[in-house]
């Protein structure tokens, strides 16, 4: 599989002009959900909002596979759905192949739907229970009027066979198929109109390990054959490790680190990424198990921590700066391709190695001092 040229991080360019290689360009993307829809709170403007995605910048080049990882509440699914325009962003811009798509109406989005496709996380609920899977896969062809109506079934059948389903499955209803088969149907439906960008939302998390391997191989194969650009959302690092060229790590609605997959695993720079990498239960003998586990204080999406959102749990907490100022996502001195949002970026690695983070009580004191 060809790897895109990693020599220059396109994120360093001014956000206004996309380079030709930038297929998808997202700037300051924000998506908030209102919690309380009562009239009074709407009028008073005192609504509480879930800040699912809060100011995300992201670029995806044509032909590459980008993975977005994070735990529950990180905003990764919301980010994916917003990029796919299944929802409208609250703020920010999305540029697809040079054109702005963030405010387009549903009808104006229709030609886009042919070029951007989405594979849903739970394949069973993403299929209409009253339609046979054959009908569901055929539907995109009818909607976009692709090919001759007479030969559309042929296309469906041949795609089914390519993914390992049989033509007799065409007449089955979704609940009659196994989880692996359902996911294959979901992939067929997304690929049958030959899109350019495919977003996979947790494509294998509902499946057994051996099935996961099969589906991942399938995704890899299609990516090669159809020259797809892929965005893969996952909480499972093993999955993205295998399939993605670049990774984006999200925490509490923001990107905390991004860079090439291998580098990120070999040398995670953000404390959260380190925690994630070390937390995976692994069958390897040499995984570092002396790593201190994170506290379970997951951040509130409505009222996230000030400054760096990770600071309450960060095992490498420095000082009041972490509470006060939000670190911006920037490239590091030694690696143009990697971006980290952490105050450690400005400090030497030497200092970092020798750093002892303050204890709970010490942090409380720092916080108190800042508040007064």
């Amino acid at each position, binding site marked *: 599989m060809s790897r895109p040229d990693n020599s220059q991080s396109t994120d360093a360019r001014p956000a206004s002009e996309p380079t030709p290689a930038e297929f998808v360009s997202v700037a300051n993307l924000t998506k908030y959900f209102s919690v309380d829809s009562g009239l009074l709170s709407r009028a008073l403007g005192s609504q509480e909002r879930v800040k699912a995605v809060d100011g995300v910048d992201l670029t995806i080049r044509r032909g590459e596979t980008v993975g977005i990882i994070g735990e529950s509440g990180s905003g990764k699914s919301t980010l994916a759905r917003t990029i796919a325009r299944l929802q409208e962003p609250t703020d920010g811009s999305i540029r697809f192949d040079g054109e702005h798509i963030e405010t387009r109406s549903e009808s104006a989005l229709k030609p886009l739907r042919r070029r951007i496709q989405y594979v849903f996380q739970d394949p069973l609920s993403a299929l209409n229970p009253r339609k046979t899977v054959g009908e569901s896969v055929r539907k995109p062809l009818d909607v976009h009027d692709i090919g001759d109506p007479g030969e559309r079934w042929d296309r469906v059948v041949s795609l089914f066979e390519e993914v390992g389903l049989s033509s007799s499955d065409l007449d089955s209803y979704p609940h009659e198929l196994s989880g692996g088969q359902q996911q294959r149907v979901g992939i067929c439906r997304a690929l049958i109109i030959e899109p350019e960008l495919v977003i996979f939302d947790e494509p294998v998390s509902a499946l057994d390990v*051996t099935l996961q391997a099969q589906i991942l191989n399938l995704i890899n*194969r299609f990516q090669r054959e159809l020259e797809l650009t892929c965005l893969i959302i996952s909480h499972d690092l093993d999955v993205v490790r295998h399939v993605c060229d670049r990774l984006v790590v999200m925490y509490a609605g923001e990107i905390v680190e991004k860079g090439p997959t291998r580098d990120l695993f070999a040398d995670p720079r953000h404390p959260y990424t380190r925690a994630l990498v070390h937390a995976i239960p692994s069958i390897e003998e040499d995984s570092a198990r002396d790593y201190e586990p*994170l506290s379970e204080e997951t951040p509130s999406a409505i009222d996230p921590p000030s400054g760096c959102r990770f600071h309450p749990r960060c095992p490498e907490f420095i000082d009041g700066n972490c509470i006060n100022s939000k670190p911006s996502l920037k490239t590091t001195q030694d690696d143009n391709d990697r971006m980290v949002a952490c105050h450690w970026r400005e400090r030497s690695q030497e200092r970092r190695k020798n750093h002892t983070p303050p204890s709970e009580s010490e942090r409380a004191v720092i916080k108190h001092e800042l508040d007064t």
Partner: protein
Amino acid sequence: MSTPLLDIQNLQVTFPSASGEDVRAVDGVDLRVYPGEIHGLVGESGSGKSVTAKSIMRLTDDAHTTADRFEYDGRDLLAQSEAAMRSIRGDEVGIVFQDALSALNPVISVGEQIAEVVRYHGGAAESTSLVSELRRKYLTGTDTESTSWRRAVELLEMVGIPDAAQCAHNYPHQLSGGQRQRVMIAQALAGDPSLIIADEPTTALDVTVESNILQELKRLATEFDIAVLLITHDLGVVAETCDSVTVMYSGSVMERAPTTALFDTPEHPYTRGLIRSIPKYDSSPGEDLSTIPGSAPDPTRRPTGCPFRDRCEDAFDACTDPLPTHHVGEDHVSHCHLHNTETPGTTASADQSRPNEHAPSPAATPAAEHTDTEANLEQQ
């Protein structure tokens, strides 16, 4: 080896079905858990691992259950009355379910739920009559000075919940996923059990929380000398937490071994395939993962003999015979016909069991039958 705490031989669990095709979810399973050890029961969906666990506590009484031996602490569980089982459950065996949110009562505080277990099984000298329980549930709640409440708070502290005295008054939905799971563990510990059955306790949790919970479980097991039967589909969890493992596939046991032995020298083709399916640390993206082609058989239509033979590269004629038992090493058992022959099979090389070692070239293939389902997906 000491005597096992849980000793099950040839367990069969069959669910009757309206259409006449009975489902044999568990087909001849042996399971042994020794006191104080953490034993993993690993399998994919449809393997029968959950049913096995539930049947131990006789929670599957709508099914037809038979076994050559089905003993807990020397007692035959199948012979126990329901009343006797009720006193075993909670008291000697604690159960931790997968989804704490649905396993905990949403309208009763967590402290109250744990205190209740303490009253019934933990030896607190408090009345558990219907009237007093009703009064506690609907009117007063458990007296915070009572033994049962104080023990509940103690247990919450033990499982690592901060601010336990305050937290005990909370309701399940007010806690995070990880905290709820800890509450479940506290509830399982409340009766002072010698065995805890944990059914996929961390599957629903985030990775960072999962590792915390697993470490907590390990610590508690060691500290209180409790045996744990940990059911999971995640080999990584097994590698990190368990002392020994039983691998199940489609209702039968494929292999049983101490954890290190299982990962160092897996003997069964299914175990090997499973280990190899996990993306390796240094695999290159784009290269195909090795996978076991096909999918698990329908439980009503299992092949005779070895249930894995339709997907096994090394399947040959003898595989239609009932599974043999082959002792590989100390407490290491593999149920595969390959061991009775001299031929090594394509997956025989022990070198490729650990992921951070190189994949060797395939060994000489015996005159075996190749099952070649979904050929366009399989890659070696």
